[in-house]
């Protein structure tokens, strides 16, 4: 038990340091950005018609007159008190925006995450088990093709085929246009989430399948599989009894590590499908120099990714008998 607590404590400390580093990096990148917040958000024409006093006030609002260190430390001390500030673009509390957008994105991200995990595992195991034969070549070809395809390009392609040409699916947004909020059904939301989720899954599958395939090949070449064959076990039994069991551990790591890729991918995919999720608002905040919002999003997504890795570590302790029994003994 003490061992477990120590483990959790170390992880938590690491998470705090990580979030600090990530927020600092995001802040520095934004302050190095050549974008002028006034020109981007107010516009050149509007600026030209303003008095110097008005411009001075706007510059204060966007924080351009405050020294860098002071701005970051100010944000940090507020954030530590649980106050992530108010978005400069939306004039709403940052946490409220993130909450809304995350609620929109979460279903999308979750479906894409589960789908790519399950499909990736199945394809990887199949390819590894039929190494060098037709199923393997097809799966590997697909994976290599997909991993060398940018997510946004794939999103555009799917959009063209399924929305524009075939007209089966909506072109964008998360709900139908011109419909009252109250009358939007879950089916509407699912219908609008299909294409973005599909894009994210298709790109996520490749990585997981290729890694699982490598591990599966290792397992199939192992001495214990050789012995299983010598004992007359069928290929089916070997894959189900030994293959899946031994591929499970790396698959868990891969699956939880892929959270970061899904979130990263969602930024581009939501942009293409005008899907009002967290990814889209992250782009807005970045391009609009909305420092509180961007830092808020960065910290929240980093925390999600970190939590995913932490869950993987903890699951290892449950699944791997070496860790489980080792910890029980000490």
């Amino acid at each position: 038990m003490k061992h477990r607590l120590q483990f959790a404590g170390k992880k938590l400390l690491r998470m705090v340091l990580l979030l600090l580093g990530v927020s600092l990096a995001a802040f520095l990148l934004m302050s190095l950005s050549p974008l002028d917040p006034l020109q981007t958000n107010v516009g050149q024409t509007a600026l030209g018609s303003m008095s110097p006093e008005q411009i001075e006030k706007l510059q204060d609002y966007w924080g351009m007159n405050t020294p860098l260190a002071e701005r970051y430390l100010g944000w940090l001390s507020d954030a530590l008190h649980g106050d992530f500030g108010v978005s400069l673009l939306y004039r709403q509390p940052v946490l409220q925006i993130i909450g809304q957008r995350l609620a929109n994105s979460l279903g999308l991200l979750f479906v894409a995450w589960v789908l790519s995990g399950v499909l990736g595992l199945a394809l990887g195991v199949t390819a590894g088990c039929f190494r060098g034969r037709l199923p393997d070549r097809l799966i590997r070809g697909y994976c290599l093709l997909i991993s060398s395809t940018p997510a946004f390009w794939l999103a555009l392609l799917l959009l063209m085929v399924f929305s524009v040409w075939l007209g089966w699916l909506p072109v964008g947004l998360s709900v139908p246009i011109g419909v009252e909020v109250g009358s939007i059904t879950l089916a509407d939301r699912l219908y609008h989430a299909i294409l973005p989720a599909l894009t994210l899954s298709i790109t996520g599958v490749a990585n997981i399948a290729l890694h699982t395939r490598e591990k599966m090949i290792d397992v199939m070449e192992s001495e214990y599989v050789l012995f299983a064959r010598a004992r007359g076990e069928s290929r089916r039994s070997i894959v189900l009894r030994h293959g899946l069991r031994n591929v499970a551990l790396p698959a868990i790591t891969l699956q939880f590590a892929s959270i970061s890729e899904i979130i990263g991918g969602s930024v581009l995919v939501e942009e293409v499908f005008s899907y009002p999720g967290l990814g889209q608002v992250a782009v807005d905040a970045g391009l609009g120099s909305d420092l509180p919002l961007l830092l808020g999003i960065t910290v929240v997504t980093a925390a999600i990714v970190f939590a995913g890795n932490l869950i993987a570590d903890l699951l290892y302790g449950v699944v791997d008998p070496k860790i489980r029994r080792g910890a029980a003994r000490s």
Partner: protein
Amino acid sequence: MEPILEVKGLSIAFQQYDAGTRQRRLPVIRDLSLSIGAGQVVAVVGSSGSGKSLLAHGILGILPYNAAMEGEIRYDGELLTPERVEALRGREIVLVPQGVTYLDPLMKVGPQIRRGKRSPEARAKSRSVLERYGLGAETEELYPFELSGGMARRVLISTAVMETPRLVIADEPTPGLDARAAGRILGHFREIADAGAGMLLITHDLELALTIADRVVVFYAGETVEEADAADFAAGRLRHPYTRALWRALPQNGFMPIPGAQPYPGEIAGGCLFAPRCPHCHPACRAAVPYREADGGRVRCLYPEEGGTP
């Protein structure tokens, strides 16, 4: 007596890629012959790298895809075809592998011994088998990494006797064990043979092999160089100079090593493979040497009667 296993002129070669896309054939075992009767322990003795393990895999039909096998294997008087061996392995023909790495690291011992069977009969059987080798029921709940070297070997033997095997192939079952533990493990093999099974013991340890073997087949660089009765060793009736060298290299017999090393497969010239290290090499030894009957055993040497003493 009809032998349970008869191997005649077995050769195993690998297809390998050599320098880019050029393929080459790497012969690992050449012209191997042996036979095992029911209740008999036949030891195949050779130093590491002589291709011994492949013999086991070849008989069981589990060679890697790039290996090609030629020759004739008869089991119970009939040709052992790939289909036949597939039906027999794990039931009548069983393998006892080298060590714990041949067990699934993430599966408990019990289900591995039972090969996934969950019936009460299978459970009772695995209990009694483990007990026979001095392992308690709690062993079933252990993972392979929790087994000691000696326990792992006994678990592996247990897997072999879950059914009633007629041919047991043990591939280096004793390395890493002290002499007493190794002796106990070999004693278990002797029991299995005494119960009527044929036993092929593949090992590099001549001394241990002699403690239980009825016949000894000596392997050198992928070839059988001699087949002898176990009693021939102590009686000084050995036929091949390599066997004699092996015998004299044992501590109690003089501890005398011979210079040189066995050639690798692929760098083998024609003629007697032992010629470069043989103290009695004749010019005729550079040509092909047949494997022939000699004095109750077999030998691959043109002048077996020479070289009693170097």
